[in-house]
């Protein structure tokens, strides 16, 4: 493609008052643009028409708009991305709003940004999307409330669904419930579960196919073309689906580990799940002698929020105990139900249900700690409680003690402890003999999905086995593109939430098959039509890309050469950053592109003016800098920021490029990583950090100090910290002294 460059500089919003526009225009000359124009109001209809006319008359196909942030006016400067390369140079938020007007350094900064922007545009090509007719059926793994809801919503939206259920019948836990929590105002009355209706709706729907007594032998492929092998009642069958909804549900925590709370020791100590069964099978009775239940004590957080058992809160057990307290009261108006809680947690509108239970004269609630239990000769149990509300140690005589045990995701196999799982994939650490000697390696275990992915057969998990995703920002996304988790497999939740969750995940799955067949990326770069391209002839089989991809996109052949599965890709560019051979590139995002941009920076020879290059992530750091601009927060003029899709895409060669050019430091600003990560690509910022640990090597080769390179974690709302962070880094760099390569 022959590049024909048009540069458009807007002088509105203070740009013209602050900068020498003519100077900017002169700076573009070396790139020989076909047109270079200034406009006082570029985002006006007239301004946009100016660009359109040039496209029409001059054949401009590479458009550089030097104006405001790329995050605004996207709908205004909207030129077909498959035909034109559009690059936005942020003179407003990143220059004139954060630097003193008319200053020489402000002008230098703007010129650098303009030159980098033009270079980026000149190096970019329009993407070539991989469109294909793909399979759009949705596979639903698990036929509980969430799964049924996912399948029904899928069918309602006009797609086909296949349910694979392990048990002999659909319905899951909902079938075992005596009553469910109230679903409508005033949230006071328990309701019979309406699961039968749902099962019937699924069974009668011609667009939903159901396999019961079934398991998945293998899932091979990628979104739009997952080949699923299901074995059911002795025979197996392979079919193709487009995306997967993962609703495998939960299991109760193993109460036999709660002997210290009386379980297994005393007959009248049962779990909340057992009470539910009891209520379903003839009502509440003392297990020891079948006697009436006059007084029941519910012990909340039994084996929960406890490092030795489940360290987390299951969020439902308070509600379950309130519900079951009502069973006790309904069965006998003179019976007392005592709930001993650590914290009463009734999320959302269930607060109303809590209130209605609280109003019941026979339901007694207290924050407290169970100090001990003793069995009386008649089988009743004296529960000794440090009652925090009464401020006294009280003894309650109970016919029934109910342990409110928590929920464990079915991602965790029966025999494993949820609080003691191997990182990322559940499995065993084994010792393997390799050419480097004996190494310890994780051997992941197959549990449900049996994915034929190089990285492992299941979804990577967070602590305690829940599928890894950003819990708040993109809850259904897992780390396997096209597989969306929902229901209590994803995190503990009640039935109403699971139902909603199933619907949500189904819609994500549909979105996935649609975007994928258009050759577009799903979240977070939804709509991106680029794909990573591998120059495999230069590959050294180092496997960094296949190991580091947060989404398991790449498989390997026997030698270790990456095998692409483009539709699994989320376009973060982590592989691009990982590759020491620089063989991974995108049409509009490449190692060479950034290197070329770095060459355009004019590093001043003045030793008192350290120049620092910042690599910033487009999801958090870039908008944070925008917000600094919007709030007119001033920061030093020594920085030149380059936006990356993800900090995980940082290739170490760029750091060498920056420093060998004579710039004095490199700062990487990206999302928080660790347990509470905020990275949109989950592992990106952490990967960048790990790579920086290895930058030492590069720097010592250049005889430079490691402290010249630093990574900062910044949340999107922490823009006010920027001046402090940047000032501090300058001070640090000044202390190290000027880069000895300056002026070379």
């Amino acid at each position, binding site marked *: 493609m022959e590049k024909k460059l048009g540069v458009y500089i807007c002088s509105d919003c203070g740009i013209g008052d602050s900068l020498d526009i003519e100077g900017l225009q002169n700076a573009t000359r070396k790139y020989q643009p076909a047109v270079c124009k200034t406009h006082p109001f570029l985002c006006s209809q007239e301004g946009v028409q100016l660009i359109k006319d040039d496209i029409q008359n001059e054949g401009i196909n590479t458009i550089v708009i030097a104006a405001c942030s790329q995050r605004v006016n996207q709908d205004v400067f909207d030129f077909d991305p498959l035909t034109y390369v559009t690059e936005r140079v942020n003179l407003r938020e990143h220059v004139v709003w954060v630097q003193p007007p008319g200053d020489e350094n402000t002008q230098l900064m703007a010129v650098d940004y303009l030159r980098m922007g033009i270079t980026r545009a000149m190096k970019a090509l329009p993407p070539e999307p991989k469109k294909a007719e793909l399979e759009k059926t949705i596979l639903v793994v698990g036929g509980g409330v969430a799964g049924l809801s996912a399948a029904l919503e899928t069918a309602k939206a006009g797609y086909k669904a296949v349910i694979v259920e392990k048990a002999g019948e659909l319905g899951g836990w909902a079938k075992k419930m005596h009553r469910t929590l109230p679903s409508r105002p005033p949230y006071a009355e328990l309701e019979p579960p309406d699961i039968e209706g749902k099962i019937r709706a699924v069974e009668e729907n011609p667009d939903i196919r159901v396999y019961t007594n079934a398991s998945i032998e293998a899932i091979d492929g990628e979104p739009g073309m997952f080949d699923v092998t299901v074995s059911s009642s002795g025979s197996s069958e392979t079919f193709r689906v487009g995306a997967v909804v993962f609703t495998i549900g939960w299991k109760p925590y193993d109460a036999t580990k709660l002997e210290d709370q009386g379980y297994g020791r005393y007959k009248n100590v049962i779990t909340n799940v057992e009470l539910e069964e009891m209520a379903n099978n003839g009502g509440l009775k003392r297990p020891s002698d079948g006697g009436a239940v006059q007084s029941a004590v519910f012990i909340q957080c039994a084996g929960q929020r406890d490092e030795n058992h489940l360290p987390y809160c299951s969020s439902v057990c308070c509600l379950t105990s309130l519900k079951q307290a009502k069973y006790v009261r309904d069965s006998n108006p003179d019976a007392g139900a005592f709930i001993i809680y650590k914290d009463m947690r009734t999320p959302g509108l269930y607060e109303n249900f809590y209130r209605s239970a609280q109003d019941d004269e026979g339901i007694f609630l*207290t924050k407290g700690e169970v100090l001990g239990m003793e069995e009386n000769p008649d089988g009743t149990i004296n529960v000794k409680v440090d009652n925090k509300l009464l401020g006294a140690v009280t003894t309650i005589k109970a016919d029934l003690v109910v342990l409110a045990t928590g929920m464990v995701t079915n991602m965790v196999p029966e025999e494993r402890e949820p609080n003691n799982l191997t990182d990322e994939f559940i499995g065993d650490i084994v010792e393997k003999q390799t050419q480097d000697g004996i190494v310890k390696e994780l051997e992941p275990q197959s549990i449900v999905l049996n994915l034929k992915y190089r990285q492992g057969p299941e979804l990577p998990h967070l602590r305690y086995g829940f599928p890894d995703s950003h819990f708040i920002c993109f809850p259904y996304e897992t780390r396997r593109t096209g597989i969306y988790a929902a229901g209590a497999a994803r995190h503990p939740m009640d039935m109403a939430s699971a139902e909603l969750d199933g619907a949500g995940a189904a819609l994500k799955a549909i979105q996935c098959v649609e975007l994928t067949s258009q050759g577009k990326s799903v979240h977070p770069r939804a709509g991106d039509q680029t794909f990573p391209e591998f120059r495999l002839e230069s590959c050294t089989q180092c496997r960094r890309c296949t190991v580091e991809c947060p989404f398991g996109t790449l498989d390997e052949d026997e030698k270790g050469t990456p095998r692409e599965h483009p539709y699994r890709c989320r376009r973060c560019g982590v592989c691009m950053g990982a590759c020491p051979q620089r063989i991974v590139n995108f049409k509009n995002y490449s190692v060479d592109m950034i290197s070329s941009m770095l060459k355009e920076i004019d590093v001043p020879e003045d030793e008192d003016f350290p120049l620092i290059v910042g690599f910033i992530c487009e999801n958090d750091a870039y908008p944070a800098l925008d917000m600094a601009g919007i709030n007119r927060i001033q920061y030093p003029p020594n920085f030149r920021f380059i936006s990356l899709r993800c900090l995980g895409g940082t290739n170490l060669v760029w750091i060498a490029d920056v420093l060998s050019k004579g710039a004095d430091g490199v700062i990487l600003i990206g999302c928080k990583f660790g347990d509470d990560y905020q990275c949109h690509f989950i592992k990106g910022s952490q990967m960048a950090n790990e790579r920086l640990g290895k930058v030492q090597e590069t720097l010592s080769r250049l005889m430079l100090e490691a402290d010249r390179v630093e990574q900062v974690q910044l949340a999107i709302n922490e823009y006010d910290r920027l001046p402090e962070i940047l000032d501090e880094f300058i001070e640090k760099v000044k202390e190290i002294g000027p880069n000895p390569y300056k002026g070379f």
Partner: protein
Amino acid sequence: MAEETVISPDIKFIRELKETGGETLKKCYQCATCSVVCPISPDDRPFPRKEMVMAQWGMKEEIFSSPDIWTCHNCNDCSKYCPRGARPGDVLGALRQRFIKEAAVPGFMGNLVTEPKMTLVALAIPLLLFLVVLGVTGHLGIPEGRIVYSKLFPIRYIEVIFLSAVGLAGVAYLTSLSRFWNRLTRVNGRGYSKAFVPALVETITEFLKHSKFAKCEANRDRKNGHLLVFYGFVGLFITTLWITFYYYVPKIHSPIPLSDPMKWFGNLSALTLLTGSLIVIANRTKDKGINTRSSSFDWTFVIMVLLVCVTGILTELIRLAGIAALAYPMYLVHLTFVFYIIVYFPYSKLAHMGYRTLAIAYSKMTARDVEA
């Protein structure tokens, strides 16, 4: 951690409380806003938070062995600021009513007076008694001539009936009070920082000044109403002594001329009581943004006070107007209400007098009282 208690909640007690004005008690979620805003709650084990939870848990014994439900003046600052609408003020009121009923000697009197549905029976008893006495002694009928109430109901009869009834009630009340005192003092492991008599004197001084009542914020006007009712009763009590003195010493008999200082004093006291009870009623009816509801027990008593005033004043006015056919029946009606107020006092709202005195004195003795 305090002492160990075995809990066997009295669900019936909770139900009763809910029926007698404490229907919101279960709403309390123990945030303790009430104890913080209460101007007269002590720092040491403040009320009404703990009363709320004990009531929720049906711990009758514990509540009734503490002075705190009586230390409460029902200002309702707690109910005003309660984020849950649990109305601690009303719950404590219900607890006090329940206590009066529980502590009543003999027990059936508790039921008779604290149960509003029994009020008519309670009033019928003295009226029938009067009619029977008058019938038997041949006094039933409108006497001729100048209206002199002792013509209908000789003073000696009144003395015998009232003195013996009040005497019995007094003995019963003293029994209840001493039982209460024993309950209070039974579990005192902390010793006393003040003797009973000085504490009592301090308490009564406070009452005379209504200084603790003055600390109420949400319901400031209640103090004035209560003060007038209090002094109205005191004035009428003095009037009664005064007239008895006239009767026996200078042998001045009723009706006493309006010019007599005793008459001025008596009428002034009656007007004070009337004004006081009207203020109390007005306070209870006007919405001051405080989330409270008067229990029927409270209403019964306020209305009885109003009626005793109104019938008393009417008795005097009709006599002055000389309408014998109305005056004598009115007098009987008035006597009936007087009987209700002074003979039933150990079982009516008036019983709080003694319990509150002892409770506050005890709080002072154990250094848990808030400076007035």
